């Protein structure tokens, strides 16, 4: 049995990101391809930390207009209202749809915030080569990857309502500029979490260095 503290990279072995085949690979400077499926092999995702930071910072910036601007405009003969993400949730809560209010709150407020903060935490800990709770941090990463897609919920709701409720003077729903910013936040954080390489969390625990 191989010793349980050996990483593949420490042994000069590399696992293919497409077919998972483990094969021997020379230093990272020379290109190598998977013998089974021909995918480009690398020990760690190249430029992972820098790219992840770039996407994350962009997401942080867009997160501000996403929350401050109007997500949805609802107009009729008798009333007109502009809703941001938060005011939309509050409105749902007031009208008695508590379950839906909670679902929307989780999908459009909690999840994006959780993703931004978690990725920041992961990136900083990886850059400092921290040895702090690697198992918990890996689980956090898996959680971020798993829940990320659900923040698209509000985008779909706005799309459906804005397309359906076009009844002229009786009622009209329009998507606001926050929808654009929010959509961008979701896409950027998804790309950021794809760029992050969780194996970096474990590298400080290895004796062998693989750069």
């Amino acid at each position, binding site marked *: 049995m191989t010793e*349980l503290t050996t990483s593949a990279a420490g042994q000069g072995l590399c696992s293919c990101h497409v077919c998972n085949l483990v094969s021997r690979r020379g230093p990272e400077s020379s290109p190598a391809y998977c013998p089974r499926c021909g995918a480009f092999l690398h020990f760690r995702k190249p430029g992972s930390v820098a790219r992840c930071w770039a996407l994350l910072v962009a997401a942080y910036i867009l997160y501000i207009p996403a929350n401050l601007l109007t997500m949805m405009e609802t107009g009729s003969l008798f009333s007109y209202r502009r809703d941001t993400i938060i005011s939309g949730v509050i409105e749902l809560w007031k009208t008695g749809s508590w379950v839906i209010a909670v679902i929307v709150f989780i999908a459009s407020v909690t999840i994006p915030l959780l993703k931004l903060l978690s990725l920041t935490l992961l990136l900083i800990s990886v850059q400092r080569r921290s040895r702090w709770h690697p198992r918990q941090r890996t689980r956090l990463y898996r959680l971020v990857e798993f829940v990320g897609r659900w923040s698209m919920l509000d985008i*779909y709701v706005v799309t459906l309502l804005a397309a359906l409720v076009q009844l002229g003077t009786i009622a009209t729903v329009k998507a606001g500029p926050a929808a654009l910013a929010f*959509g961008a936040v979701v896409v950027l954080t998804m790309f950021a979490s794809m760029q992050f390489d969780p194996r970096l969390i474990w590298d400080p625990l290895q004796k062998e260095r693989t750069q």
Partner: protein
Amino acid sequence: MAHYPAQLIACHDCDLLQREIPLKRGCAASCSRCGAVLYRNATDSIDRTLAYTLTAAVLFVIANMFPIFAIEVQESRSAITLAGAVRSLWDQQMQPISLLVFLTTILIPALELVTMTYLLLPLKFRRIPAGYTYILRMMQIVAPWGMIEVFMLGVLVSLVKLTSSFKVIPGVALWSFGGLTLLLAAAAASFSARDVWARLDRKPDAEVAA
């Protein structure tokens, strides 16, 4: 295959090198260090995934052809299909959002269904699909962007929002999307890339070269 180190597996989350062990049916092997699922012994993964995928493809067509729901106000009725919603948003100067919705709910799910069928149907009959390495690579890239299940939740939330002010009539596509969500989840759960590679590896190199 002689040039592959036998049965070694590296955890995709922590890179721990481990030896593969045989599993009982329906069991999964997880990394001894970080707990990530490494592989599972899926029963008849190719047959089952193919069956789910083909059924999902039928429902996908229905879900895209018929209205999801309609609202009725003072004799006027307004119904909507998914493609209609995408087009309407495009006309409302929301092109990026329209494009995002189009990609995540129409194009990528369609692509996933097509590539899955293209890959598994020949494998079922012991043939090797041409260009399978590209297909598998593409499937891996597009997989996170197919969001039918999130869209389904979006449909339900919209439904609740609409019922407070309108009379809402559910359409055929509403049920189809519900079924499609379940079938895609079943297909994803039964699919095992490891079994596909095992099937591909068994072929002699000469035939694979095509």
